[in-house]
């Protein structure tokens, strides 16, 4: 019960945060000297009525506070306006967000699956050649600019022809059976995942190693050793559980980092995700689309942090008790 109340509180806390985020993004975009409907006006396929409707919906003839109110109201209703091509922003987002989520969740899963064991191994073998080599490798992984790495892999793909160059699906995707579709998407995902995986793996492995080394220094681990427990039991039953907790807090931040890193990677690989969408929108100064994808990015980030916090409540009893006091 206590947990539920705590979680509920945490969820309520995100509401003011979202409001401030929307205010910030709204004012940044309104600060720009760009006429939000300029592109729309130039597009001959957009009818006069649509234009009129947009002007009214955005309240462009009214003061900026009213504009914000109008925008917020229609945002909550789910009406995000139209892009400069006259498409609905919401359909565009619906198409792109799952792709970005697919990419980032695969990366996070893989990074944890590989990064945690590697971090543990490095900590156990502290200062041995194995640990040194891993440290060198992670230093390299952290220093490669994501877009540069992506370009290198793209060249590799073109030269060898082993991987498709960009996109998420092949041209004959619609004719495939379900199994073929899965294979096709996996094939397209390999390179972008490799780029983002390398980046987040390096950070995660270091963090895990550092945490575990810290925990192994603590008194209760010394006590467990003094008690005569085997080294395996000390590490896996006592130390590891405490070392993983800070990583869960980091999960939210990692998600944020991935969203940002993914934008460039998506751009290089022509991957149809949210990052590339916002980039294209920015380059075309498509205000509705920019605003909506900025909000969606923020919502995803806040949700990521929320999930991380809730996970932490479940895994770390100390936080639960802290909340009662």
């Amino acid at each position, binding site marked *: 019960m206590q947990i539920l109340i705590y979680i509920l509180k945490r969820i309520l806390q995100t509401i003011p945060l979202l409001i401030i985020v929307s205010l910030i993004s709204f004012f940044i975009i309104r600060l720009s000297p760009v006429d939000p409907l300029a592109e729309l006006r130039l597009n001959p396929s957009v009818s006069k009525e649509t234009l009129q409707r947009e002007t009214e919906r955005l309240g462009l003839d009214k003061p900026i506070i009213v504009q914000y109110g109008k925008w917020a109201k229609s945002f909550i209703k789910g009406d995000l306006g139209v892009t400069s091509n006259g498409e609905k922003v919401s359909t565009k987002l619906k198409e792109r967000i799952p792709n970005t989520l697919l990419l980032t969740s695969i990366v996070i899963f893989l990074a944890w699956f590989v990064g945690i064991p590697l971090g543990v191994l490095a900590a156990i073998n502290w200062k041995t050649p194995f640990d040194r080599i891993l440290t060198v490798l992670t230093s390299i992984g952290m220093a490669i*600019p994501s877009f540069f790495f992506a370009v290198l892999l793209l060249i590799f793909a073109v030269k060898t022809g082993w991987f498709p160059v960009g996109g998420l699906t092949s041209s004959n995707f619609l004719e495939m059976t379900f199994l073929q579709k899965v294979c096709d998407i996996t094939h397209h995902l390999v390179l972008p995942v490799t780029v983002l995986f390398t980046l987040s793996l390096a950070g995660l492995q270091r963090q895990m190693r550092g945490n575990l080394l810290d925990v192994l220094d603590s008194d209760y681990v010394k006590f467990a050793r003094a008690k005569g427990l085997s080294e395996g039991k000390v590490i896996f039953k006592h130390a590891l559980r405490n070392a993983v907790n800070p990583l869960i807090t980091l999960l939210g931040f990692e998600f944020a980092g991935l969203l940002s890193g993914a934008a460039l990677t998506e751009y290089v690989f022509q991957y149809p995700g949210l990052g590339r969408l916002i980039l294209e929108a*920015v380059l075309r100064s498509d205000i509705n689309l920019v605003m909506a994808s900025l909000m969606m990015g923020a919502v995803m980030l806040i949700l990521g942090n929320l999930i991380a916090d809730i996970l932490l409540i479940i895994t770390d009893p100390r936080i639960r008790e802290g909340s009662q006091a």
Partner: protein
Amino acid sequence: MIRDLLKQLWKDKFARIAVIVLGIIYFALFFADFIAPYTKDFSDRSMAYVPPSKIFTIDENGKLSKPYTYNYKREFDPVELKIVYTLDRSQKHYIKFFAKGQPYKFLGLIPMKRHLLTTDESGRLFLLGADINGRDVFSRILFGGRISMTIGFLALFVLFPIGLLYGGIAGYFGGKVDMIMMRFAEAVMSIPSFYLLIILASILPSGMTSVQRFMLIVVILALIGWASFARVVRGMVLSIKKQEYVQAAKSIGASRLRIIVKHILPQTTSFVIVAMTLSVPSYILSESGLSFLGLGIQQPDASWGNMLKEAQEYTNIIYRPWLLTPGFLIFIAVLAFNLIGDTIRDILDPKSKTR
């Protein structure tokens, strides 16, 4: 304290290598005008995309000779339908050291003509090939590096005072002030930083001078980073303000601003140093990413990021791999900064075991 830190830094093997590498890079960037064979904007359209110049030290008779190079000839191959580059062996161009070449102003002040390496008037010495406009990639890397390698530091100098003061005020005043200020900072952090970065960069009006644009990009980079820094400062201030000497300052009637700026913030010095060295690489990466997309530093100015813009087309890069050099330089610089940052963290916090 700083001297002590530097001494320990020098003792560490990896950190020493990193310091030396960065030293060489910054030295080369400082003397870029002299080291680069050409000026930043020198272009020879007939030399578009020529490969790196080949330097010969043994002449056609098999005898040792002064180093010389041949120009490339650009020819259209009608059979294969592509442009081929062949060496024009009719004329040798000897490489001259400390000779007169393109005129420039050393550090923007002293007019000079001597270059470390040049060749004669009609020869073209492109050590790392040329780009689409026939500009020397090697020279542009040097000039671009000036921007790429300083922008991070400049952004930090804008961001740190803001973050320190913001975090200091929030932490010291506490209560409602703290809550409102921190909610705002959290909201800034909740927007994926790269999204914010490209949006801010895209609303920059066009038609600015390159200096204005550079300064504004510095400001934008600072706007992205201050929030998380302020949050950590606030946490530190919360614990420092309870100490006795702060109470003492309060009791003799020091103003709040004085207490924050003179008594509390100096206590965060070691953290500030670590945070600075650790965050330089991320600003270098941000700038290069931004320029790579064409939203940062604009042509004809060079930066390592915008030089890589041409690498966006993979067909381009497969035939002209020398255009990728700036990417390796970013990698090396970031790696070196990271190594130094890790070592400084180890020195300041003996308990930490990053290495």
